[in-house]
């Protein structure tokens, strides 16, 4: 799973029917200390009601994403936001 921060939203009128009515968030990958991990990002379907500025957990693997969305075996989805992160601690010892 990927730790990320929601940086924006994407709205499409013309899109694959699977994505109709599903909120899509732009999530940039962050390191445990909160800084961006380069330009790495993903556009993910929101399953938890996350908002811009929040740190989130993104599942970036197709089979798990399909399972979470009850779309197995052929839902065309790979990235889903599955959690809102309250706190990250990192032991640097």
């Amino acid at each position, binding site marked *: 799973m990927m730790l990320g921060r929601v940086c924006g939203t*994407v709205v499409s009128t013309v899109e694959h029917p699977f994505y109709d009515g599903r909120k899509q968030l732009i999530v940039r990958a962050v390191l445990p200390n909160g800084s961006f991990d380069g330009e790495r990002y993903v*556009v993910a379907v929101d399953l938890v009601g996350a908002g*811009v*500025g929040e740190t989130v957990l993104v599942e970036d693997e197709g089979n798990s994403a399909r399972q979470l969305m009850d779309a197995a075996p*052929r839902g065309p989805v790979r990235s889903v936001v599955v959690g809102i992160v309250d706190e990250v601690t990192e032991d640097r010892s």
Partner: protein
Amino acid sequence: MKLGRVIGTMVASVKAKGMDGLKLLVVRPLTARLEPEGVPFVATDASAQAGPGDLVTYEASREAALLHDPWFVPVDHAIVGIVDQHAYQDEGGRS
């Protein structure tokens, strides 16, 4: 999914079985802030209506094939939708 800009079209009269009728577009990958990033690639169009100049979302990997019907096609990049509105802010970003 990722963001990309359609920069051209491609026509191939001889294609693998299962790819008949699929529209092929040349897409330049973009960062979250819509800056060009990396090398353009060819994608099929699962939104059915994308064209040059459009900002789009695309899926890479196996999920690209799943966007089509029938889904067992040799496709590894496919356009999911045409983006009408792209809201972006770095708020909270510490880098």
